[in-house]
């Protein structure tokens, strides 16, 4: 256990050091969620006036939840990019040789992904508050929202880690990114589920992310909804992707 | 009939300075006669490629003049480019095109079309041994194949003068030798003037009719390889004692005959003999007098590296890595 933690600490220190001292990593992570938030709220706020748009907290809060979850998922994907980069540069081999317990490597990347996302989440939250976002949920609701996002971040990290461990090249980026992008956007991004029509309604209804989105919006509006389902899905994703990531690590070890 | 100047290269006081950088080329005078293979030898960062870029009109000189094929490189750039072919330091090929498609592109750029284009492409592909691989994408080519294609592309328009910038760097011995044979044939059979830059002593020795040795942007020596080596006229004696503990004794004895030098085998002692001092028999007698038993004794004739050492105080091989690399091409082209 001690070995695992010391490896995790070393790995996460390195990732975070690189992240915070390199503008080319830090800025896109921060700017993209802010940009989406601004663009969606700015362009589409009038859509909350469509009959049946039942979200009294306001469109800013409605989009904030999506952007928070999106940033959580993509922070995980960006971590996967970093792992792929480490494979290509040979640095991962160094880590594998040095680490007494290699699960610590996975833990290190996961911890650093979380720390990265918390930074981004803090900035996005501050900007949303400056933009006069309403919050109708109480403290417990907000904790629930951020914990949900945290779980999604972990799931995203484990997904991307598993891909990176298997493919071990930066050209795997689209493989990591596209499914996450699709899952995010085949959800009620712009309007509540009830206002979706046609095929997108069908897809969004079975999309696991929809439950997380609806639950998150429930938290921020003080009307918790689908809470149990959302957390169950999040935990399920984490368990599934943990297995995916660990098996990926074993494959990477076998490849040498 | 071509006049002699049409196949020659001349440079007077050629200088290339980069913005906020050192002088990559610092006053070069040279002349390459028609049909000659001129070897431009120097370590990394010496200014070889920058010189080639100026002579091929890719970079204007900061000062000085140069004529290639009888045309001024500054005033008559397009005419120079019509007369020359160049295979530069990077093979510069498109990995998604086939060998044949590269030739199609190159012939089109030179205004060669139709049947003549096909004929010329086939001829060159055959000549460089790439006919079988002609329709394969270049990303599947080996390093040697890429260099051969590079040479073929440089010859598409039958240039009178050929510039080769480190053409065999990174190639295996077989590919290198094959390229040497082709370059030699071009000069001998077709009268093509070849300006070849290299950091390989052997390449300059084997191929070049005359060699110019460049260091820090200046030519420090010029002449035929034999003439340059004869100027030094100093052999090097290398001795390896049977007992490594006697290395000091061997060094003391040999230093009577010349200055110690480096760059030979581990455990050996090497001295560069002075012109007036020492022949092998005297050296053996002196070592014998000290009771030293040798496992190996060799005499090395002077090399171009010895010439470089004599002129600059450094060995050629590894000289480029010792220095801070000088930019031969800045990322942001300087304005002239």
């Amino acid at each position, binding site marked *: 256990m001690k070995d695992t933690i010391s490896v995790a600490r070393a790995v996460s220190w390195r990732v975070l050091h690189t992240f915070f001292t390199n503008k080319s990593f830090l800025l896109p992570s921060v700017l993209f969620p802010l940009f989406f938030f601004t663009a969606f709220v700015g362009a589409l706020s009038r859509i909350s006036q469509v009959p049946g748009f039942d979200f009294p907290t306001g469109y800013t809060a409605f989009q904030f939840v999506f952007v928070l979850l999106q940033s959580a998922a993509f922070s995980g994907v960006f971590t996967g990019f970093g792992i792929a980069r480490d494979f290509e540069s040979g640095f991962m081999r160094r880590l594998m040789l040095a680490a007494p317990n290699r699960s610590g490597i996975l833990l290190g990347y996961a911890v650093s992904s979380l720390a990265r996302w918390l930074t981004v989440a803090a900035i996005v939250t501050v900007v949303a508050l400056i933009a006069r976002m309403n919050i109708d949920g109480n403290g417990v609701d907000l904790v629930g929202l951020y914990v949900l996002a945290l779980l999604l971040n972990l799931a995203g990290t484990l997904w991307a880690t598993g891909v990176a461990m298997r493919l071990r090249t930066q050209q795997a980026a689209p493989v990591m990114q596209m499914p996450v992008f699709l899952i995010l956007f085949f959800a009620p991004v712009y309007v509540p589920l009830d206002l979706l029509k046609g095929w997108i309604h069908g897809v969004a209804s079975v999309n696991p992310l929809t439950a997380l989105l609806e639950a998150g919006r429930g938290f921020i509006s003080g009307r918790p909804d689908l809470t149990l389902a959302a957390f169950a899905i999040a935990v399920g994703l984490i368990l599934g992707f943990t297995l995916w990531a660990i098996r990926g690590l074993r494959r990477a070890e076998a490849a040498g | 009939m071509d006049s002699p100047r049409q196949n020659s290269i001349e440079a007077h006081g050629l200088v290339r300075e980069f913005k906020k950088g050192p002088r990559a080329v610092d006053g070069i005078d040279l002349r390459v006669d028609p049909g000659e293979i001129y070897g431009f030898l120097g370590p990394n960062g010496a200014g070889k490629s920058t010189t080639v870029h100026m002579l091929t009109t890719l970079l204007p000189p900061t000062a000085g003049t140069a004529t290639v094929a009888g045309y001024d490189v500054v005033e008559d750039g397009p005419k120079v480019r019509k007369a020359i072919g160049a295979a530069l330091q*990077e093979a510069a090929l498109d990995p*998604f095109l086939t060998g044949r498609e590269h030739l199609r592109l190159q012939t089109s750029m030179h205004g060669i079309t139709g049947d003549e284009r096909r004929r010329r492409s086939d001829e060159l592909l055959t000549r460089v041994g790439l006919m079988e691989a002609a329709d394969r994408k270049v990303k599947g080519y080996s390093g040697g194949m890429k260099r051969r294609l590079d040479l073929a592309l440089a010859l598409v328009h039958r240039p009178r003068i050929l510039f080769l910038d480190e053409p065999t760097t990174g190639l295996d011995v077989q590919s290198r030798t094959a390229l040497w044979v082709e370059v030699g044939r071009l000069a001998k059979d077709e009268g093509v003037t070849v300006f070849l830059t290299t950091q390989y002593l052997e390449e300059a020795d084997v191929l070049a009719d005359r060699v110019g040795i460049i260091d820090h942007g200046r030519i420090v020596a010029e002449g035929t390889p034999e003439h340059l080596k004869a100027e030094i006229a100093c052999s090097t004696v290398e001795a390896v004692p049977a007992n490594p503990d006697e290395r000091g004794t061997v060094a003391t004895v040999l230093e009577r005959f010349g200055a110690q030098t480096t760059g030979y085998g581990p455990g050996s002692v090497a001295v560069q003999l002075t012109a007036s001092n020492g022949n092998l028999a005297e050296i053996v007698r002196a070592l014998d007098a000290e009771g030293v038993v040798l496992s190996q004794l060799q005499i090395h004739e002077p090399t171009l590296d010895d010439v470089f050492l004599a002129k600059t105080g450094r060995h050629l091989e590894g000289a480029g890595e010792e220095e801070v690399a000088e930019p031969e091409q800045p990322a942001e082209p300087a304005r002239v």
Partner: protein
Amino acid sequence: MTATALPQIATLGRRAVIRTARQPANVVFPLIFPMLLLAVNAGGLHSATKLPGFPTSSFLAFALAVPFVQGALLATINANVEFARDIQTGFLNRLALTPVRSLVLLFGQLGGLLTIALVQAVFYLVVGLAFGVRLESGIGGAALLLVLEALIALAFAAIGSWAALRTGSTEAVQGLFPVFFVFLFLSSMNMPRNLIQTDWFRWVATVNPVSYLIEAVRSLVIEGWNWEALGLGFAVAIGMSVIGFALAAHALWNRLERT
């Protein structure tokens, strides 16, 4: 333009097309991604058509304009990354050593990109029609749409070529993607300008030239012949093309220091 220039432009353009065609990711992504986004947005924002004053009852028809701009962007970024790679690998030097004139190099590059963008545009049009979108401007409008698309692609291509020539860096050209992306999102791509509620966003969308490109294409799809929208769109596309081309030509002149 001399007699040799046209075949040279054709050969260079052909190379740009071949290079793209032989990299499946560069073919598939610009075709599929805009369509995917269109499908998502058309489904997700369908309810926006219920807003008073929304110009059409089909969000698909409303949003079909976006892939034309987005696809042009993706194709030109990809191709200009390859152009930057030509500079990095020395391939541009190889071309510079031939008698080909500098502007011919640029025309060849741009010509290739235009071809790619037009193929994409035809694809988007066919998909839109297959999913029930009706072009209010008819066949003439479709033809004009392709002309407009060519100009839009030329504008982005020229700006991308400028970046490639100026920096000689594939990363710098790739870095343009988020910049263009920002311009695309801060436009009237998802909502008519007059229905944008947020004042600052409406102002940004109004000064954003990409809005006029989208609105011109959109007008051909959902309105028919809106000469004001078309005039503005063409003016912006031509203006961007001229500025982009001038920048690219200047950068080429600097890059090719050849005498």
